């Protein structure tokens, strides 16, 4: 009886050891997990965003002296910024009082996808058909994509128009988020986004709006990886991408149409011979005259 109990204890202990060894092996296998790397611009963007957040009034309370010192520095920075802005002739205003900057921040995704005014103009100047998914002929699914509405663009244009008219809808929380988003864009990109917003909201902008809508359809019809990359491309690369995607579809193995029939060649000297046709003498040995026929 005692011996049976000892055997059972030993077996349980052995099982526990086996299980623990298995856990340990599984734990060591976690070393195979890949290391992540932050995007190279993450630090710079975060610092810019933190500056915008601070300017947005979320600065922690400070002592009176520090506050005055900060105000003096802020005033100096403001004066310097105004001077720099005047010198640069920049008309960009991304402060909290600029309704268009807020609207731009709200609709950054739409604007990033639409790209620059130049791109939209170039696109509207071309006769771009509705999209087709790669690897097959045009299908009903492609037609469905081409008919799909683009409510985000409509909402963005309505917001831009309201902002330019001076009657934007206000929502403090969303406005703050929008300002943070706007603050995260590098200055050049921000100016381009403002210009695109103005162009899309301007009277008579229908061709540009249609171009943005058509471009959106093409982006939607692309595969998920391309969908993330394409909006980051410049005007030239976007147009090249579109040209590639817009090539007519050919089934696999198709090598193009046969060459057009050649007109019969008139009898004459051999090409590049520069002289009359060569005639072999009758007495030339038969075996050296080449194959008969």
């Amino acid at each position: 009886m005692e011996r049976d109990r000892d055997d059972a204890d030993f077996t349980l202990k052995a099982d526990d050891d086996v299980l623990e060894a298995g856990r340990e092996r599984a734990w060591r296998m976690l070393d195979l997990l890949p290391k992540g790397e932050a995007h190279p611009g993450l630090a710079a963007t975060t610092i810019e965003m933190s500056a915008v957040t601070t300017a947005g009034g979320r600065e922690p309370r400070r002592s009176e002296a520090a506050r005055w010192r900060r105000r003096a520095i802020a005033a100096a920075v403001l004066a310097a910024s105004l001077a720099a802005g005047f010198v640069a002739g920049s008309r960009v205003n991304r402060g909290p009082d600029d309704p268009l900057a807020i609207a731009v921040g709200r609709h950054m995704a739409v604007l990033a996808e639409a790209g620059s005014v130049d791109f939209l103009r170039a696109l509207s100047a071309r006769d771009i058909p509705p999209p087709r998914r790669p690897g097959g002929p045009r299908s009903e699914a492609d037609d469905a994509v081409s008919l799909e509405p683009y409510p985000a663009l409509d909402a963005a244009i309505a917001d831009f128009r309201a902002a330019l008219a001076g009657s934007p809808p206000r929502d403090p929380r969303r406005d703050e988020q929008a300002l943070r988003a706007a603050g995260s864009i590098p200055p050049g990109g921000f100016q381009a986004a403002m210009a695109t917003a103005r162009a899309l909201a301007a009277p008579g902008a229908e061709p540009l709006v249609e171009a943005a809508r058509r471009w959106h359809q093409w982006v939607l019809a692309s595969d998920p990886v391309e969908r993330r990359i394409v909006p980051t491309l410049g005007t030239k690369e976007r147009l090249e991408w579109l040209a590639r995607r817009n090539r007519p579809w050919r089934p696999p193995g198709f090598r193009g149409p046969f060459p057009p029939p050649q007109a019969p060649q008139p009898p004459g000297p051999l090409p590049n011979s520069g002289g009359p046709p060569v005639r072999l003498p009758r007495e030339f040995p038969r075996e050296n005259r080449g194959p008969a026929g």
Partner: protein
Amino acid sequence: MPSIDFRQSGSSAVLSDPSAELMGRVQRGDASAFEELLLLWQDRLVTLLWHQTGDHALAEDLAQETFLRVYRSRASYRPTARFSTWLYTIALNAAKDARQRAHRRREHGIPTSVSASTSALGLDALAIDASGRLPSRQADRNEMQAVVQRALAGLNEHQRTAVLLSKFEQCSHEEIAEAMGLTVPAVKSLLFRARENLRVALEPYCGGAE
């Protein structure tokens, strides 16, 4: 709220923790210290959040959100614990908020691997998948990485967090408990169950890994 003078505080945490000292400089308004802190921690934080959420792009967004929260609440930082514990607490809260927002909006959801309800199914699928393989099969590194990632994603969120903090950040049970807002016994229990789940999921592959 006045900032703390770290050099006079004599805190042992600061003496042994360069990040805490950098944070002290951030509190004193040193912008370059914040940048140093970012560069020091961004890759580690992205790795942690990537394996936590299963989405690298989302992990970068959350890492950025974490650093912004660090910056905003810099005045409230006290060097009583390691800086990393404070950072992980903020990061985990940011991830939790993002998940709740995604859940509410039902738009850009965090991958289903995070969901505890699907985690059991994930483990089952992994075990079934594994059972169909020959034990002697030598999977290559990428394949094994994918297997380990799936096994990790199959854990529930709490277990996964505890594993990541313990394994990759070398956090003690106390530090994990503080970051996750749990008790130390709860963390020990979480880690034990996580290790057991990983064993079940990875045992069929262990021969290939070693």
